[in-house]
């Protein structure tokens, strides 16, 4: 079996260990004899995302926003197409904000995002920083249960983002905040889901401390439609890391 993955702007959006997400994704595939080819998509690259099973976009300093957006504009329709077709996508931090509907800058300028998620971000001086614990939404819990053999329904990570992100009417969150700020520190939501696309502010990297979530993405990337099951792995270290932090936060 083989998965084709695409890493968007690895040189620009590479904050807080986010590239670790792809490492975790690839390793967990390889340990099950699944090959992953990773292509890098750089500034100035053009083209569609046909043939990719998994797209990853990470976080970055806010100063990178305009630089990335200039390019993202051109490829946004292709990303939206891919997600509509069922391609798996993980967007973290600034990557998540960029794939929303728009970002309103502190000076009032409104910049359009790629529009994958029904979410918009209003930049202000607020900053959400700290360890964060979520309970997956009922839908996510269902999917996690079907996909894997790790009996965890929470997600853990470190959030570090400025501004507030709000989901629109079509927007579904990834989970409910138990500890931490989440999308905006007001409504208790964190992240967003649409089809097989997931956005989140969880760094850590999120897939390292949440092996059940990593396996869910892997299952979906292998087969967006049918249910398949993965061979179990020894995840005692990952689960220990997850539970140690969880205990500290509850």
């Amino acid at each position, binding site marked *: 079996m083989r998965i084709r993955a695409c890493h968007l702007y690895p040189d620009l959006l590479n904050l807080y*260990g986010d590239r670790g997400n792809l490492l975790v994704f690839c390793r967990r595939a390889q340990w099950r004899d699944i090959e992953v080819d990773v292509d890098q998509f750089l500034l100035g690259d053009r083209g569609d995302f046909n043939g990719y099973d998994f797209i990853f976009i990470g976080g970055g300093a806010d100063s990178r926003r305009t630089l990335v957006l200039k390019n993202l504009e051109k490829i946004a329709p292709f990303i939206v197409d891919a997600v509509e077709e069922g391609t798996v996508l993980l967007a973290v931090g600034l990557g998540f904000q960029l794939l929303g509907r728009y970002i309103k800058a502190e000076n009032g300028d409104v910049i359009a995002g790629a529009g994958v998620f029904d979410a918009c971000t209003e930049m202000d001086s607020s900053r959400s920083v700290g360890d964060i614990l979520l309970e997956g939404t009922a839908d996510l819990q269902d999917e996690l249960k079907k996909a894997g053999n790790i009996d965890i329904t929470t997600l853990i990570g470190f959030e570090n983002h400025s501004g507030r992100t709000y989901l629109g009417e079509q927007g579904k969150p990834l989970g409910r905040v138990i500890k931490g700020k989440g999308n905006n520190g007001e409504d208790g939501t964190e992240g967003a889901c649409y089809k097989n696309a997931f956005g989140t502010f969880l760094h850590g990297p999120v897939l390292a401390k949440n092996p059940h979530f990593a396996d869910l993405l892997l299952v979906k990337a292998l087969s967006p439609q049918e249910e398949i099951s993965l061979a179990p792995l020894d995840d005692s270290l990952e689960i*220990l890391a997850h539970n140690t932090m969880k205990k500290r936060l509850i």
Partner: protein
Amino acid sequence: MNKNSINKGFRFWLAFYAGRLTAFICRLFRLSGTSLPGAVALRICPQLLFYLAPAYEKVIAVTGTNGKTTTTNLISYFLRQAGVPVIGNGEGANMINGVVTALIKDCNFFGAAQSRTAVLEVDEGSVGKILPAVKPDLIVVTNYFRDQLDRYSELDHIIALLRKTIDHLPETELLLNADDPLAVAVGRGRTAVRYYGVAGERDCKELEENEIREGGFCPDCGELLTYDYYQYCQLGDYRCTKCSFKRPEPDFLALDVDDSDLLHFSLYLQNKNTGEQEPQKGNLDLHSQLRGFYNVYNILAASAAAMLIGVPQQIIERSLPDYSTATGRLEQFIYQGRPCTLGLIKNPIGVNEVIKTILPQEGKKAFLIAINDLAGDGKDVSWLWDADFEKLDQSMVSKVVCSGRRAAEIAVRLKYAGFTASKIVLEPGCRESLDVLGLQKADQYYILASYTSLFNYAKLLRKRGKAVAKNADQSLPSLS
């Protein structure tokens, strides 16, 4: 004007003696006390630094991400070798409390400063509080790497803060790292700027795929910078293809670097008008006990700063070989009869450089990696995933003991770096982890610890083994 003539009021003296008393109590109870006296005194008189600083004829401030402590200590060392009485906070207590503590301790009972020169390490986030008060004659900038971002959020903010601060210090001379576009951005539009840099091409290779490049963008127009070569990270010879921004020609240039073991390089003073080197001024032949390529920059910056404030070249050349490291910057011990190296790790660049330093050394190695997530360490430890643990040669590593509050996460990181489960041991406790390390059969031990656990390991190693670094600074830095 006599700088000492500032009229110090009642509040000053109250604060001053409260600080002295706190320092005395700290000593009495054998607490390290590198920050607390200043904290107490500043509560009483927040302007204290404005009164204390004018007593010094010369003030040098060192700021940046990595290498501050080593550079600060080296400048102080050169000055002392030249017979100049120096005070500094060279113990890592680099926020305002630590600076005030150092200056209070430098005064005699009547409030008169004992030293003539102050060399201050200044935390990147504290430049706005400290620099306007101390009005440095010279500011040295080491580099700007990604470090503890939860505390400072972004490099751009740090650089903007320093630029804003020095706008009000027109007299201050800057000494900047020419190889770092982010450090060079600090001096845009100023005239009194000197640069230091390292001549390429160390490896003459393309940027390795996994190396981190943060800030390789033009500070003037935002374009991605083009590099002729890299030293490491965004350090190198860069230029902008859209505008005129490029690496400035260094006034102080390191050449012929040998970093295979103890460091050795030549320092050339360049005449920028002709672009020619000036051998008549003397090329310094520098030998150091320090290891690691990154220390070339620290030695270079410190030597340049010392020369700029009048230390004779011969003194630098002659005294450098006798200088060895302060606590935490790869300190050497003997533990269980084996050489044991203790190093501070706080960001991926530091880890990568330490790994590069360790790799060429022969023999089986056992590691202890201890990461805490307290305020002094940085609460976000996701940077572990930006460090190239993949580069550690598995066949040379017998065991890695994972310790500290984030022991499990180090273990996970190593697992995904390719370490087999049998090579990973989890032992969160400090003493216990050192016990486990001591059981490992290996030719060398390496302990890499984040800030808040580093000094516990140093203390334990002095007790259980012995320190081998000569001239080692025995004082224990504390958190500020």
